[in-house]
């Protein structure tokens, strides 16, 4: 059941620390046009999220029944001031999408931080303390893997009451097990290495050995996995919003826009289409960057 992504052990020297290494990684990264395109898209999305009130042409919540269902500017009846059209109550779709980027990014990044905190801690403990602690932690991992993650998130967000914080915590607590498995595998592989032995021999405490010598060696796998998890968390947040257990507020999110637009798909195709494209592009960009990071950071791949 437990199949880890077994990244190879690295010596301390092969870690991220060296400047020569860093420039090699950077060169490998920029040589790939897909990853570069991904990075540019991400910059745009992050910029839109940070400066949303400044760049959005309209208030995202302002309604006007006179101009409801205005089609996008290039379609017949489109207006230049509403580039991507308006929704069923006349709100500007582009402005709502720009504001929605905030929710997606905040949830995506925060959920991953929660997962990292839990997953890495348990992985270090599990790898460093074989026996009962390891058995208990790995059983918890197996139990977590038994649930369709989305279903578990759905049930707990509904039970705890939908809110931004609930979504972040629940997505974080349902997505940590990947880090535990990988960190555990790496700690197990590294435990007997000379540099760990040496650290122990010069009198480093177990905590110091763990945090200063073992943990840094897992960084490159962790960076890659957490990048890819941000993409998944954005998709999951959108799915939760779509299923009606979203942030519980009127602030626009991409998933909620699609859910509301679905009912009008036969009269106004642009309602669900554009927010979906925003999700697709953002997630695709993160996946491309993450995939390239994997190639660049993973010493196995040339």
């Amino acid at each position, binding site marked *: 059941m437990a199949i880890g992504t077994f990244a190879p052990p690295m010596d301390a020297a092969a870690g991220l620390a060296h400047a020569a290494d860093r420039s090699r990684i950077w060169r490998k990264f920029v040589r790939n046009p897909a990853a570069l395109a991904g990075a540019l898209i991400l910059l745009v999305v992050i910029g839109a999220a940070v400066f949303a009130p400044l760049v959005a042409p309209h208030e995202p919540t302002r309604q006007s029944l006179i101009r409801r269902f205005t089609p996008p500017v290039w379609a017949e009846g489109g207006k230049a001031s509403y580039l991507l059209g308006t929704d069923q109550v006349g709100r500007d779709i582009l402005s709502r999408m720009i504001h929605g980027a905030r929710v997606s990014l905040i949830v995506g990044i925060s959920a991953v931080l929660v997962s990292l905190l839990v997953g890495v801690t348990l992985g270090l403990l599990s790898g460093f303390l074989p026996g009962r602690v390891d058995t208990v932690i790995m059983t918890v991992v197996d139990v977590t893997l038994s*649930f369709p993650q989305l*279903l578990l998130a759905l049930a707990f967000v509904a039970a705890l009451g939908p809110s931004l914080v609930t979504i972040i915590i629940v997505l974080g607590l349902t997505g940590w097990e990947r880090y535990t498995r990988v960190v555990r595998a790496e700690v197990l592989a590294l435990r007997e290495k000379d540099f760990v032995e040496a650290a122990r021999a010069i009198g480093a405490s177990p905590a110091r050995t763990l945090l200063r010598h073992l943990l840094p060696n897992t960084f490159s796998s962790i960076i890659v996995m957490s990048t890819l998890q941000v*993409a998944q968390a954005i998709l999951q947040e959108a799915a939760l919003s779509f*299923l*009606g257990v979203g942030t519980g507020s009127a602030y626009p999110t991409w998933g909620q826009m*699609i859910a509301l637009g679905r009912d009008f798909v036969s009269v106004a195709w642009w309602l669900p289409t554009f927010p979906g494209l925003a999700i697709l592009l953002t997630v695709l960009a993160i996946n491309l960057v993450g995939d390239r990071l994997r190639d660049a950071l993973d010493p196995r791949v040339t």
Partner: protein
Amino acid sequence: MLSLVTRRLVRLVVVLAGVSLVTFSILQASGDPVALMMPEAPEADRIALRLSMGFDDPLPVQFGRFVGNIVRGDFGQSFFHREPALPLVLARMPTTLLLTLLAMGLSLVIAIPIGILSAVRRNSAFDHGATLVVFLGTSMPVFWTGIMLILLFAVQLRVLPVSGWETWGALVLPAATLATFSTPLLLRIVRSSMLEVINLDYVRTARAKGVSEWFVICRHALTNAALPLVTVAGLQFGLLLGGAIITETVFAVPGVGRLIVGAIRQLDFPIVQAGVFVLALIVVLVNFAVDMLYIYLNPQIRVR
């Protein structure tokens, strides 16, 4: 090997106990279940119900009773339907399984040949194209894909029904939607597991014997690439069920997923608990079967 099977069985039981605990805690997380059951009742009635249902017992006692009830198939009465929750869930199970299996079958038919060809012609234009499709597929929200398919085939072309489950035509869009979700995952596994074996010595030996390339690939490489494929496909079954829940909601397919999503909106926790438990049980059993298959298929396996 026998002791390995025994240990897997023990783990199965332990994991199921854990699954019960998580399912149990869903209702606890909601706060006061009695308030959900009778929102407008006077306080005295609530206290009476709380006592009669045992909600003021210590949590371990309540959990013990919950497990005892699960074993007898009793998840309590649905707050909304006023019927036992488990039969409601089980009645909708065949629909969900049919949808999942249709999508799985469709995915396999697409992913296996494309994945093999991608691995064989590594770095060709075909391989790059397939990789692009994988990236696009894994980045699309399932529900949005479904709506876009509705827009194209039901609204614009008017060739397929928008929703429902009554005719075979109605199965096409939901199954296709779920398949767009599962195909990229499978394709990636087929490609990478083929790449792992395709340059191994025994494959080269087979080639050196002068057997045709396609025979080498199908007979020698594929049979060995099948092991990781089966394992990972089993692991991703839970992911597929998650996708099925969303797909059912988009197309109004009367399956377990739609029942659970509806129950969640009504805070009908017995249904939610029964549904979550049954789906997790399926994932656990599928993974157990995959484990057993792995032991059976892999002659090298040793008890460590």
